[in-house]
């Protein structure tokens, strides 16, 4: 993402931190579905689930960020990356115009996350780069 590409984002809260996912990618937000664990599954994966007849892999925000919160919501992504992301809760939907990004891109932690700070929410929002995440956890 570059500065020019401002997009609507969904803000999630996981622990004390706010994360953002580009809204274009989101299909829907559902309560955490019944999950089946795969044997020897990676720590990033919470399990797989039946999502309308397809197998949905659900990633764990705990696994990705090294936290241990109660994950109860699942954000289902579609398009290039059909996957679910299990998070503590979703907070709000931030439209493009509502964001005044003081864009400050820093790469942290396993190259998974990219940061930008949103002044209006007073706390920084870490925008998730799904592509980067998938690239890093692909078994």
């Amino acid at each position, binding site marked *: 993402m570059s500065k020019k590409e401002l997009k609507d984002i969904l803000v999630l809260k996981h622990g004390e931190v706010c994360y953002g996912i580009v809204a274009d990618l989101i299909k829907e937000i559902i309560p955490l*579905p*019944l999950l*089946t*664990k*795969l*044997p*020897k599954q990676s720590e990033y*994966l919470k399990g*797989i*689930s*039946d999502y309308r*007849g*397809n*197998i*949905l*892999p659900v990633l764990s925000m705990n696994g990705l960020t090294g936290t241990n919160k109660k994950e109860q919501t699942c954000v289902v992504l579609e398009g290039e*990356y*059909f*996957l679910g992301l299990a998070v503590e809760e979703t907070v709000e939907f931030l439209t493009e115009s509502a964001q005044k990004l003081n864009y400050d891109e820093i790469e942290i932690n396993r190259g998974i996350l990219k940061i930008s700070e949103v002044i209006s929410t007073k706390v920084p929002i870490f925008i998730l780069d799904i592509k980067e995440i*998938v690239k890093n*956890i*692909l*078994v």
Partner: protein
Amino acid sequence: MGFFDPDMECMIEVYQCETIELMDEFEGHLIEAEKSKTMDAEAINSIFRVAHTIKSSSAMMGMEQMSQCTHRMEDLFALFRDKPELLQGKLEHLFDLLYSFEDYIRSEIEEISREDYEQTSAEDLIERISKEIDFFTNPQLEEKEIKKDDSLLESSLLEDVNEEAITTLKVLFKENCQMENARAFMLIKQISPFCQFLSYIPENLEDESAISVLKKQGLLIHLLADSLNEVISKLIASPYLKSVEEIKKKEEKPKEDGSEKEKNSAVSGIKETKFATIAWEQIIKLQKLTGELLTAENILENAMKKTAAFSTIESLLLNNKKILHQLEDLANEASLMSVSNVIPQYYRVVRDIAKNEGKKVDFQVVGEELEVDRNLMDTMANPLIHLLRNAIDHGIESVEERLAEKKPEEGKIVLSIKSFAGYLSFTVSDDGSGMDEKKLLEKAKRKGLLKKPENQYTTEEIFSFIFLPGFSTNEEATQYSGRGVGMDVVQNVVDSLNGIVQVESQKGKGSSFIIRVPVSMTSIECLCFKVGKSICFLPVKNIGRIYAYEELETKIKIVSRKSWLEAEEIFPLLNLYTLFDEKENKHKRIIILKDGSKSIAILTGRILGQQTVVEKNLPAIIGRSYRKNMGISGAAIMGDGSLGLILSSQHLIRIAQGADEDE
């Protein structure tokens, strides 16, 4: 604006579809003719018709180049049709022209879907064809051709045929036969390869109205065949036939001139109907929906079991299930196509490469009569073509080398397709130089691919090097192969189909590549068991026997934790608890797993029963290597919404054997 008028655009698809079909027919005749080195009257007629039809439709579409070019081809074949003897001994040098003609038409047809389509000039081609016409013709013939024009097409078909020699057969169907028209259609299709001339009444077999005529009068077939007995025995062997009798008097001679063309095109155009492409998409949807329905049914049944009313509705559910399975069978059947439909492409590839390389190749296909899933066949096309290329490029030696080795001048390549117990195998074998283990090993060493001491590599492991990306034994890349890309692509496609590739090769004798892939089914009958917390499925067809572990533990049948003895036979033992990293508990079972000639024993938990499941692919994010290493081929949605893991016996066997070798 595009090349076509807006009101023409709706026609493009039909035009493409029709032309491709015609070119398939054209190609079929070419391959046949090149193989047999002669072209019979039927083939000449057919090619003439193809050219004629494409000429007209192209003119209608405003594609002058195509139209002119096919017109010349039509002229050329009109010559041969009138004087087949012209072709004698001259056929050979025509093929290149005919194949370039085909390439031109096909590429144009592909191009026209593009928005910025412009006609490609066919001047060269037209000139080449004209040269041939000059070569074969005397000037009067050409003139006559123009005058005769279309009417000639209809009347000509009978010209070459001696009417006296035509036999008329009357075929009656049994009373309980359904779909007489389709049966009749199949009959005609079956016997058409044996007949030089063939027509039948009623003509409109595709139409259901033909049924009543067939019921009343039966099917009248006029034919000219070398071996009438063969044709009749073919007919008699078909199901639902009441009688086949020969009518001596020609009372029912087909005289309606105008219909001749239609009838004949029906015979040769049987391969595929015009709308197969559209129907195909619908078939996939149908298959998918059937799968969904089966899953929904399972869930419903499980939910119902918990209610008091279950006993009363059980029979209703059963009925539902029966219908569902019929639907599933139908959907699966509809997705099948005959292997013979795609074989011409392979002939063409082999021919082109062999010609390019200056090698002589006799290419044979075994299993053309098989019906396989169309999707699977499409997916397999690239790997197979690659293997064929390799066989010609690396396998078959040059003519000089072959003669020096005292081998026949012509190299032999066989593509054999076989079906057995839920699997399809594709084998590409050649009688070429085979692979040199030493060379492969050296090369692997140079590339730093060796992971253990050189002398510990088995033949199989050495051959498996060729599947690694970037590995190629040919020092110089040729046009078609040898760049080291390819074999790993073959491996990838086969992996994605949950199949395996095997290599057999003997230096100097030739190589065989064997690909085995499971036939995709909408639902699989599976044995359901637990391993720790995971619920697993294994296809019933792979299950040999099941033993209780505790019972047998005392009988010293388990030689070690690594192998298992049954009736003096030792099987490798694969412990699924270890594989899945679960703790072993009570109720352990040992299942003998069979897959082809190989068997292993697996240690599992409690058996839960038998269930029909619909296999779903695991998402791509769960990597292929994970699936391979865990022996998991997919997942199934269970009644309660949780998921079960479908295991692949092929992969499990591979894991068990791999574990053996490590010891």
